[in-house]
């Protein structure tokens, strides 16, 4: 009886996911095997439904992996691929370094203050992402806020807008709440008596931290790292606005192929490659989530 109710509840969301999530991916996979054409929509082959089975055979016969071969031969795509993973990787490392002390600090505060501080960390996430990245342009540009302040102090200015450094700054800035929250969630739940026990047995606070608190918080660090790494690898807005034309990332390549070059098969093939790379991190993230929930 109860079971039937929950199966009924599942039907609509399941159908929604099938139509708007699974089916579209199959279309991307199919399109990555198609060729570009000057047509609307700009690719061939098109499925000819009137021809029935024969039309389907002709359609399947016309699919090939030409686009992938083309991408593999072009140095640009490989560079974009590698720099996406590199920037997302370095960004995740920086986020761990910066997010951990913040999350740990919050978990050490009295409970009432903790809740307010968590709110303060989440609040910027509720304000527009695009606007927050845009604000960094005003700060980082050659005659921007940062350089004006540096000059006023008699220091030399720095010009990092449109470089990878600016992209990393933007990534760390935008994803910091996603790193702090899972870390905080696990640090806050930790049993304080473990630390007391260690100290009773003669451990210094620092060694108690390294030997108890830190190892126990690693699942939170893993959750935060995955939650940040996966979307960062496909990030578009940050490399586009802060990285200038210098920085290549796959999200930007997909955007350019699609909007500027109108090469839909290439955009699809890049998307498939990115997805294939992210499958393992995504599965790891899901296993982590299941463990947290059960």
């Amino acid at each position, binding site marked *: *009886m109860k*079971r039937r*109710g*929950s*199966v009924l*509840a*599942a039907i*609509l*969301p*399941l159908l*929604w*996911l099938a139509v708007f*999530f699974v*089916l*579209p991916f199959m279309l*991307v996979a199919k399109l990555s095997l198609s060729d570009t054409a000057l047509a609307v929509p700009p690719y061939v082959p098109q499925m000819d439904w009137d021809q029935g089975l024969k039309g389907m055979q002709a359609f399947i016969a016309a699919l090939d992996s030409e686009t992938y071969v083309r991408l593999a031969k072009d140095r640009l795509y490989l560079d974009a691929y590698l720099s996406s993973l590199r920037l997302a990787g370095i960004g995740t490392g920086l986020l761990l370094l910066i*997010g951990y*002390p*913040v999350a740990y*600090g*919050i978990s*050490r*505060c009295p409970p009432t203050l903790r809740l307010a*501080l968590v709110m303060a960390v*989440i*609040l910027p996430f*509720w*304000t*527009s*992402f*695009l*606007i927050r990245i*845009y*604000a960094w342009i*005003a*700060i980082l*540009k050659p*005659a921007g806020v940062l350089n*004006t302040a540096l000059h006023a102090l008699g220091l030399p200015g720095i010009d990092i807008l449109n470089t990878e450094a600016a992209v990393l700054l933007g990534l760390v*800035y935008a994803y*910091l709440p996603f790193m*702090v929250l899972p870390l905080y969630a696990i640090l806050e739940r930790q049993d304080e008596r473990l630390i007391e026990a260690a100290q009773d047995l003669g451990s210094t606070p620092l060694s108690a931290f390294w030997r108890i608190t830190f190892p126990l918080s690693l699942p939170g660090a893993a959750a935060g790292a995955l*939650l940040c790494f*996966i*979307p960062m690898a*496909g*990030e*578009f*807005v940050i490399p586009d606005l802060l990285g200038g034309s210098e920085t290549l990332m796959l*999200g930007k390549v997909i*955007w350019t192929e*699609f*909007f500027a070059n109108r090469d839909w098969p290439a955009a699809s093939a890049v*998307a498939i490659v*990115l*997805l294939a790379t992210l499958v393992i991190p995504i599965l790891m*993230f899901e296993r982590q*989530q*299941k463990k947290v*929930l059960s």
Partner: protein
Amino acid sequence: MREGPSAFNIASIVLGLAFLYAPIVILVAYSFNASRLVTVWGGFSMRWYVALFQDAQMLDAVWVTLRVGVLSATLATILGTLAAVALVRGGFRGRTLFAGGLYATLVMPEVILGLSLLLLFVSAGLPRGFWTVTLSHTTLTLAYATVVIQARLRTFDRRLEEAAQDLGCSPWKAFALVTLPVIAPAVAAAWMLAFTLSLDDLVIASFTSGPGATTLPMRLYSQVRLGVDPKINAVSTILIGLVATGVVAAYLIQQRTARRAALG
């Protein structure tokens, strides 16, 4: 008894929050700057706000964005409530796969989601515009809504619902009269989250929108590419103000409800 925060703890929190808030503070400050230049303070002025409200294209985009947000958040919250019920209570086969699909949408790069949805609409022959963006945003926010509602539903005491059924309620009625009011704050929070995510989305909207359905982020993005426009600071400040008010109000309401629950 937990020791209080050390100086290092306090410094980390202060620096972390300063990093998060500095750009927002600068943006808000410069929305009141009379000068067009970011680095020159030309005195306090509301001129960018006046200019903003005379910008018909911008206002149009705001209107589109709000309609898309309300509709997609409502759809996502309804579907998310159903999905949460199925995930928390269901023992059906394929549950793991269902949960897997949902969580995958949480972390999927937006460029991939946008491109795949666009291909779906092209294949189905749907004209791109208001409805395609709304459907896409529902897909984007569905998993977030589910996660929020699921967390609350997990701690809900099912015996309350069973008691209602023992007293003669149908299962559906018991859910509507007993469970739903209890999880209502989580449902409201899920709606808010879905709404904000929809307001904020540039990438998926750019892929799936068509003529006549330019959303605010799309409009802002094209302005930003053209160069710095102080009107963007003004519209950002309004958005930030609205969101901050909403979030703080939600927090206060929740606190009061929690306090009342603790007393009763």
